[in-house]
């Protein structure tokens, strides 16, 4: 079981290439989702605050 795991991790000696590629994918794809969630929370909080203050948000900018 342990040998199988070591074999899997080493990827025939090419671990740095295989995991370097898949690792970046994991990083970016998970990062994207986390970023989307955070962005949504931030924007909701901002819009809620603006609505509470009674000032309707105008000329909304998507990129702040």
């Amino acid at each position, binding site marked *: 079981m342990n040998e199988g795991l070591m074999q899997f991790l080493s990827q025939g000696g090419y671990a740095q290439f295989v995991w370097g590629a898949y690792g970046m994918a994991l990083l970016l794809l998970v990062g994207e989702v986390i970023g989307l969630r955070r962005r949504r929370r931030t924007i909701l909080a901002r819009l809620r605050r603006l609505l509470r203050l009674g000032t309707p948000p105008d000329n*909304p900018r998507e990129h702040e």
Partner: protein
Amino acid sequence: MSSAWSKFASPSTFYPLAGRMIPVFWVLAAGSLLVGLYWGFFETPDQLGGSNAQKGYYRIIFLHVGAAWMSMWLYAVMVGWAAIGLVFNTRLSFMMANAIAPTGAIFTFLALWSGSFWGRPSWGTYWDWDPRLTSELILFFLYIGYIALHSAIDDARRADRAAALLAIVGLVMVPVIFWSINCPDPNQCAALHQRSGLGKVDGNILFAMLTTTLGFWMYSFATTLMRVRTIILTREAQTTWAAETIQAEARA
């Protein structure tokens, strides 16, 4: 345009619909990726022989091909939405195009990155200016350009139109990437992408490749819909339905 389409062109109708679809796409994405990657790592030979012999590093293919296909497909879809927006003047179409761009950029980057990491052990180089690599790099710059151009213009509607035009002009790159698979002279550039048909690929490898690609496609649906919902709330914040939704989300 029938009234059914007009209804779906309305952000207020699309917002909750997208919300319901997102979890479905996450489940499909997770399922496909798990199956595809499991298959790719455990049901395929450890190395390949033949005219283009490959060692263990070839397993990058499942990530590389999927990401590359998505980079092209997402660009085409983005242009589709941009064109619809320009022709029918529908806000939501432009919002969809904007929502796709970052995900498309990420997959393009991953195609380039994974390709690099595959190229080094197998053909001896992280990079080469062969037609396909170069055109994929240009595609990456087009995505970044789309996002940057849109950011740079204050008026949302003008930004939408300008970016849409850029995207449409750049569409020529996709067929260039797709068809530039042969380096004309192997002495001039590394023979990284030789002509090979899908029919010649081992069945297990092909299955893993297609399943992983499906997984990326479902993932892209999920992230694009998540992004467009936030875009919709930002742009439509002055409307009653949006105000009510925003308040309701606070309690959820």
